[in-house]
C-alpha cells in the first residue's frame, strides 16, 4: 500500500514532470516561432546553440526529473533510472522526430537524420573497439606489456610475478572486450543500413509505420534479426568465448591474490573454505551410502499397475493454436 510519504513522492514526481513538459512545450513554441529571427528566452547569447542543443538540454532535464528525484525511495530511484536507460533509444528517436516536425522537415529527412545519428554512434563504437596501440590508454601505460613481461627478482619475486600475471590478464581481457564491442557495432551499422533500405524501398505488402512506436518496433525487429543471425556465426561465438574466458582467467588470478592477502591477515581463505566444503560433501556421501547399506530391505508393496496399457505406437498430439495465446 502506498503511504502518505510515497504519495508525496509520487506527487513530487508528477509535479516535476508537469513542470518539465509545460516548460518544454512553451520553449518549443517560442523556438519555432522565432527560428531565423532571434533566440528564445533561456537560450540567449552564447548559450543559444540551436534545436539540437535545446533538445539535448531538455532531455537531460527530463532524465533528471525522472531519475534524480531526491525525495524518491531507493526502489523508485532504481526504477526511474532503469526506465530512463532502457528507453534511451526510444526517447532519442522521439527527440529526433519531434524536433523535426517543429521545423517542418520532410519525414524522409527526419528518418535519415535519425539513422545517420545511429550510424555515427555505431561507427564511433567500432572505432573505439579498434583503437590502435597508440590510442589505447593501457598500451600507453605499458606498451606491449613491457613492464609486466619482465620477470620478478629478489625477495618478493613470486608476488611480482603474480601481479604481473594479473596485469597481463586484465590487459588481455580489455583487448578481447574491445574486439567484442567492435563486432557489436558492426551489427548496429548493418541494422541502420537495413532500416534505411526499408524506408527507401518498403516491401509492397508492408503496412506504413504511422506512429513513433511502430517506427521503433520496426527498428527493434531489424536489429534482432541481424543480431540473431550474427550471434550464431563462428565469428561471434569465437569472440564471445574469448571475452568470457579472458575475464574468467583474470578473475581466477584475482582470487589467488586476494587469498594470499587474506592469509597474511590471518583470515580464512577461499581455498581453505572450499577444501572444507569438499571434505564435508565427501563425508556426507559416505554417510548416506552407509545409511543406505544399513537400511533393512523394505517389505514388498502391491505394485500399482497402469489402468490402461497403450499399444506400442508413437503418437503426436497437436494442440490447437489459442486465439489469444500470449508469448513471452
Amino acid at each position, binding site marked *: 500500500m502506498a503511504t502518505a510519504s510515497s504519495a508525496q513522492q*509520487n506527487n513530487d514526481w508528477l509535479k516535476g514532470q508537469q513542470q518539465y513538459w509545460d516548460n518544454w512545450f512553451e520553449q518549443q513554441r517560442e523556438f519555432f516561432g522565432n527560428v531565423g529571427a532571434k533566440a528564445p528566452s533561456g537560450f540567449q547569447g552564447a548559450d543559444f546553440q540551436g534545436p539540437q542543443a535545446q533538445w539535448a538540454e531538455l532531455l537531460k532535464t527530463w532524465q533528471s526529473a525522472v531519475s534524480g528525484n531526491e525525495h524518491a525511495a531507493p526502489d523508485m530511484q532504481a526504477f526511474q533510472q532503469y526506465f530512463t536507460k532502457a528507453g534511451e533509444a526510444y526517447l532519442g528517436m522521439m527527440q529526433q522526430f519531434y524536433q523535426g516536425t517543429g521545423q517542418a522537415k520532410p519525414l524522409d529527412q527526419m528518418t535519415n537524420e535519425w539513422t545517420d545519428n545511429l550510424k555515427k554512434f555505431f561507427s564511433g563504437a567500432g572505432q573505439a573497439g579498434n583503437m590502435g596501440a597508440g590510442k589505447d590508454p593501457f598500451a600507453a601505460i605499458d606498451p606491449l606489456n613491457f613492464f609486466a613481461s619482465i620477470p620478478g627478482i629478489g625477495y618478493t619475486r613470486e608476488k611480482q610475478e603474480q601481479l604481473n600475471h594479473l596485469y597481463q590478464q586484465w590487459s588481455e581481457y580489455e583487448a578481447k572486450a574491445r574486439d567484442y564491442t567492435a563486432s557489436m557495432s558492426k551489427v548496429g551499422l548493418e541494422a541502420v543500413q537495413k532500416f534505411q533500405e526499408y524506408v527507401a524501398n518498403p516491401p509492397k505488402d508492408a503496412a506504413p509505420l*504511422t506512429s*513513433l512506436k511502430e517506427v521503433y518496433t520496426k527498428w527493434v525487429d531489424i536489429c534482432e534479426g541481424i543480431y540473431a543471425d550474427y550471434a550464431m556465426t563462428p565469428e561471434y561465438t569465437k569472440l564471445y568465448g574469448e571475452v568470457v574466458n579472458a575475464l574468467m582467467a583474470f578473475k581466477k588470478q584475482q582470487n589467488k591474490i586476494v587469498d594470499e592477502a587474506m592469509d597474511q591477515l590471518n583470515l580464512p581463505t577461499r581455498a581453505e573454505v572450499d577444501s572444507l566444503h569438499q571434505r564435508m560433501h565427501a563425508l556426507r556421501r559416505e554417510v548416506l551410502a552407509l545409511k543406505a547399506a544399513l537400511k533393512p530391505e523394505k517389505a514388498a508393496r502391491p505394485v500399482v499397475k*497402469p489402468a490402461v496399457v497403450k499399444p506400442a505406437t508413437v503418437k503426436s498430439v497437436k494442440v490447437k493454436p*489459442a486465439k489469444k495465446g500470449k508469448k513471452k
Partner: protein
Amino acid sequence: MIAVQLSPEKIFKEVTNFNTKLAEGIKNLRNLGELPSGVTPKEEVYREDKLVLYHYKSPTGKKPTNKIPMLISYALVNRPYMTDLQENRSMIRGLLETGQDVYLIDWGYPDRSDRFLTMDDYINGYIDRCVDVLCERHGVDAVNLLGICQGGAFSLCYTALHPEKIQNLVTMVTPVDFQTEDNMLAHWIRNIDVDLLVDSLGNVPGDLMNWTFLNLKPYRLIGQKYIDMVEILDNPQQVHNFMYMEKWIFDSPDQAGETYRQFVNDFYKYNKLITGEVELGGQKVDLKNVTVPVLNIYAQDDHLVPPSASKPLKKYVGTKDYTELSFKGGHIGIYVSSSAQREVPPSIGKWLNERS
C-alpha cells in the same frame, strides 16, 4: 508506399500520451504491494539442506483421484513458482483440478557451501530421497514424475537409473539434443572454458545466467519490453501481471558450481545425454532404460529450448508408449498464458489418469 507516415499532430499526441501513461503508472507501481512466490496452499513435507518438498492442496477442496502421487522437478535455474504464479495462471492448480496429488521440489538458493554438490547429489540424492518420501507417504512403489526444462533432463536421467520408481514420466520444454542448429545457447557455449569459469566463480551467479538469457534477444528484452510496459502502466491489473513475471524472471538462484560444470560440459558441450555417456554415481545414463510411458511437451516458439532440441526424445527412449504434445507458445507462455491454462494441465491430467 511511403514507409513512414507521421504527422506533427500524431507525434505531439504520442509523446504526450507516453508521458501521461508513465506519470500515471507510477501510482499503480507504488500501489502494487507484495508479490507472493506462489499462490496455491501448500505444506512442507520434507526438508534437506536448502531443498524443501511441498505438497499442494486444491483451493476448491477437490480431493486427488489419482492414487499415484506426482512429483514435479523444476530446473535449478529460476524458481519453481513459475508453475503457480497467480490464481488464474497456475499449472499446479490445473493439475490439482484433474485429480493429481501434486508435490514439488523447491531447490532453494544454493550458497557457497553447496558449490561441490554434483549432478549425482541432485539426481541420485535429492530427487531419489524425495521419491522415497512420496512412496512412503502413499504406500506405492513408484510415482509420476514431471520434469521441467533442466529438471526434465534430470528426470530423464533419474528415470533411466531408477525405472522401477517411476510410473509415468512427463517432460516439459526439456532439452534432449543440445546441439541442434537453432540452439543459440549451445552455439555460445562451444568456445567457453566451463572449467575455468567454475574454478573462477565457484557458484555461477544467477545474475550472470540472467544476463546470458537477456542477450538471446537483447533489443527486445532489455529495451523494447520496458517501452511496451509504459503502454500498460495505467492498467493496475496488467501492471500486476507484468510485475509478477518481472519478479520471477530476475529471482534467479546461483548455480552450484560442480553441477553447472557437469551439466554444461556433458549436456550442452558434448551432447552426452543422447550418446549414453553421461555418468552419475558411477553409472552410465542410458535413455533406452526409460521404458515407462513418456509424455513429451514442447513449445513451438521456445527460444531457450527449441522444439528441435526436445522432439528427438522419441528416438532415444526405450518406451513403447510415447506421446508428444505441441503447444503454440513460448518457454514461459507454456505455464502462464491463458491458452496454456486451458490446454496443458488438462492434457497432462488426462494422460496420467489413463495410465495410473
